[in-house]
């Protein structure tokens, strides 16, 4: 459907993408008792930390191996060892997730080898689960780092082999980087409605939902428990969300034999219907009344909102999966996606985005194209605020980072209920822009040409393999 454009440029103006190591760190933060460790100079951690703190409005236990000049020349293995030992002594985490950075990867370090020899020499580290994902800053973006980290956790911590010893009611859910705490809560509740216990990896709804503990803790509190990760082979099935989670789902299926399904989209009616049907098939339980009611509410919301979205020209800039999800949803209400800008070309989904073209670019590309296409609404993260200001357009904040709005972790846009609330949010933006008409509004008597709206893109399941 869409043509993928990668304009040749000499750099980027107003970057749209956040880095892969940051995505990896966010995934690590979804594990209970975790500390993410960046292998690189201390600025890599500091920037990522500051950005994540602004988004989540939470303290972030992120650490660095603090590579300085000498280590840049002689190698960073000693720093990695020292960092692991210090972290264990200072914070006693249950889990340390290591993410490499551009600096250390440019040196060409054999981090896997370093880590093996450290673990052989330092027996005290055996108390802590340690995994490593290779995430140089110059490859991919947030999604890629997140997916690599989840894959590393699965490969490192899941006990291989399929087992059916526990409840026979477990399902595994692998959310994408674009899911909020509220999204995960909703997924868990939906699974529970079918009598299923969901093991969610990574689970930011436990660790980064914003809660106040009775005690101080320097590591994450809440998140996926290590023993639950080990037991993922107990699952009846695995549901992964977003194209970028395909490698993680494959890794889990390969290790345990638990059949997996990757859903490209959970926003909107058709997408949620598919999830509900899948849950029903997995559990053998009929769809409960509560969900039927929610579906009906979403249908009604679509009836109420389509007036305000029909024919609207929308510009989206986000990571590939989120771009696809939003584009399909807006399209299903009669809006047109006039601009779609994304961060990396890695995703096979991009061709299926219901727009003429998808551009791999930055927020300046987004701004210029949205202006040329006469967009009515900009949909991107908080960094798009400058573009919105310059173009005088409304700005709907989605994705990461959102640092100028409160409560972003408690806003859901998936499932029947989340789609319903999100739809009202979008509808209200357009509704609030409707002004009293004045004579000068009717200077041109031109009637805009009528276009038949295309059939929208259904069929959200992605075949694996």
């Amino acid at each position, binding site marked *: 459907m869409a043509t993928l454009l990668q304009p040749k440029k*000499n*750099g*980027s*103006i*107003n*970057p749209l*993408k956040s*880095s*892969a*190591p*940051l995505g990896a760190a966010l995934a690590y933060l979804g594990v209970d008792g975790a500390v993410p460790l960046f292998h*690189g*100079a*201390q*600025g*890599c*951690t*500091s*920037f*990522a930390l*500051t*950005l994540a*703190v602004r988004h989540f*409005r*939470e*303290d972030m236990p992120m*650490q*660095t*191996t*603090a590579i*300085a*000049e000498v*280590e*840049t020349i002689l190698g960073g293995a000693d*720093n*990695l060892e*020292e*960092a*692991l*030992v*210090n*972290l264990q002594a*200072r914070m006693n985490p249950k889990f340390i997730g290591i993410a490499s*950075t*551009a*600096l250390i990867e*440019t*040196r060409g370090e054999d981090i896997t080898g370093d880590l093996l020899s450290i673990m052989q020499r330092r027996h005290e580290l055996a108390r802590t689960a340690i995994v490593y994902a290779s995430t*140089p*800053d*110059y*490859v991919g973006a947030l999604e890629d780092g997140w997916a690599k980290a989840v894959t590393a956790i699965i490969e490192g911590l899941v006990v291989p082999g399929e087992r059916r010893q526990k409840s026979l009611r477990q399902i595994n859910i692998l959310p994408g980087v674009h899911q909020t705490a509220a999204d995960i809560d909703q997924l868990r509740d939906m699974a529970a409605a079918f009598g299923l216990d969901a093991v969610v990896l990574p689970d930011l709804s436990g660790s980064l939902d914003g809660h*106040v*503990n009775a005690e*101080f803790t*320097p590591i994450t509190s809440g998140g996926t428990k290590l023993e639950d990760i080990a037991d993922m082979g107990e699952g009846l099935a695995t549901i992964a969300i977003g194209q970028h989670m395909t490698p993680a789902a494959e890794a889990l299926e390969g290790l345990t034999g638990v059949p997996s399904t990757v859903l490209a989209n959970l926003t909107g009616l058709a997408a949620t219907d598919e999830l509900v049907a899948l849950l029903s098939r997995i559990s053998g339980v009929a769809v409960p009344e509560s969900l039927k009611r929610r579906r009906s509410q979403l249908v009604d919301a679509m009836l109420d909102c389509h007036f305000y979205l029909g024919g609207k020209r929308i510009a989206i800039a986000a990571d590939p999966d989120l771009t696809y999800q939003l584009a399909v949803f807006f399209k299903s209400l009669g809006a047109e996606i006039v601009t779609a800008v994304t961060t990396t070309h890695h995703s096979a989904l991009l061709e299926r985005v219901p727009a003429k073209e998808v551009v791999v670019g*930055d927020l300046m590309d987004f701004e210029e194209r949205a202006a040329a296409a006469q967009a009515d609404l900009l949909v991107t993260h908080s*960094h798009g605020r*400058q573009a919105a200001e310059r173009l005088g357009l409304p700005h709907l904040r989605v994705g990461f980072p959102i*640092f100028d709005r409160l409560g972003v972790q408690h806003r859901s846009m998936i499932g029947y209920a989340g789609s319903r609330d999100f739809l009202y949010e979008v509808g209200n933006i357009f509704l609030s822009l409707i002004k009293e008409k004045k004579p000068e509004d009717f200077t041109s008597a031109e009637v805009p040409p009528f276009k038949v709206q295309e059939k929208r893109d259904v069929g959200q399941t992605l075949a694996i393999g």
Partner: protein
Amino acid sequence: MGEVLRSKTAELFNEPGCAKNQAKSEKERKKGCSKPLVPGAAAGGCAFDGAKIALEPIVDVVHLTHGPSACEGNSWDNRHAATSGPSTYRLGLTTDLSELDIVMGNGEKRLYRAIKDAIARYDPPAVFVYQTCVPAMIGDDIEAVCRHAAEKTGTPCIPVLSAGFSGKKNFGNKLAGEALFKHVIGTIEPEYTTPTDVNILGEYNIVGEIWQIKPLLEKLGIRLLANITGDARYRDIAGAHRARVNMMMCSAALINLARQMEERWGIPYFEGSFYGIADTSAALRMLARMLVERGAPEDLLERTEALITAEEARAWARIEPYREILKGKRVILYTGGVKSWSIVSALQEIGMKIVATSVRKSTEGDKERIKEIMDDPHMVGSVPAREMYARLANDEADILLSGGKTQYVGLKARRPWLDINQERNYAYAGYDGTVALVAELAKSLSNPVWEEIRRPAPWEISADIVPLDCGPQSRSGVGEA
């Protein structure tokens, strides 16, 4: 780059203007000033971060980061340095090096083209180019690229050698000062000069603080030739060498620049602060005195005193209503540098008690000042988050004043917290700023929310559920149970 950076580093570590450095033996000094970083126990930014903070407030130039997307991509658009005009500085430009660029060594070519593109697109008075770790490692010579680009385009291109691995944030500030001294200051003559031209160094116009300071100077007829770098234009900074006096706002950051400007152009400098009433007055007095010493009209001294008297009276009158709320309230001040003492005096003046003030990034001079103004100076170094949390949770203080990174330690202990570092949303400089700070403190401390959130939950009050008697008699509320 290695040689250049090494000699630059050695120079900076030998800073004669730095009291701390002069107190060391020759051998100690060779080791440089940065404490070695501890892997797994380090926090804070890198040299690139520090350089960018110090230069980004120059509002009309293009700031271009040479490196992979993360350095700029994760950090741009995150400060509130305000502008009175151009907003070019708010753009985030980066060469966004890909794996292929690094492997094939395309960095320099890409940088050159990116500079040309930026100049064609925005026509800025200058381009600042920031070096980051990866290009420094693969040997991209940004100085040569900048020289070449400047020759070709006629626009000055300023290389900032700020590879992240070369040091901490503080060191990056100094690298920024070096870049200004070497490539910018003294390259343009100001249109005219006056006997009362001054520069301020290390003021970044966070949420518009320079506009709380500038009117005071204007009332005295003092011209702010260049504010380095808050709300600055490139031309102002390039002509900053004609000032009569330099005032240094942040002791640690740009000392090297102040000293070198004194050596080359004979501009005397002093260290002052515009935080707190007493310090604002002291800074104005010092400015006036030094200007008069260098030939400004004598009456400046009298006019300064008159202004101080009037402004102080006005400020205290406005603070008076808050005194009742703030009297005796206990504060932990967790910042560093100048603020470790300048804010102390302001808070003590209102009758607040300083339980502890942090001297993490403070110089010996800063510590001396604290001892001068506090009867019982509780100076602390780095306080681990756990300990800070414990102190607040155990009711050792009523409010925490710190930077954003410590924010949640305070809030999670259910204690009021106020931001006094660069992420803050309120301007606290000068007399007006001090009044604003006091108002914020009072607003925070008197908020009923603290009492509300510390109230125990129903299940914490009593574990046994008393069955509801649904008879005709009245029910008792939770509070009376």
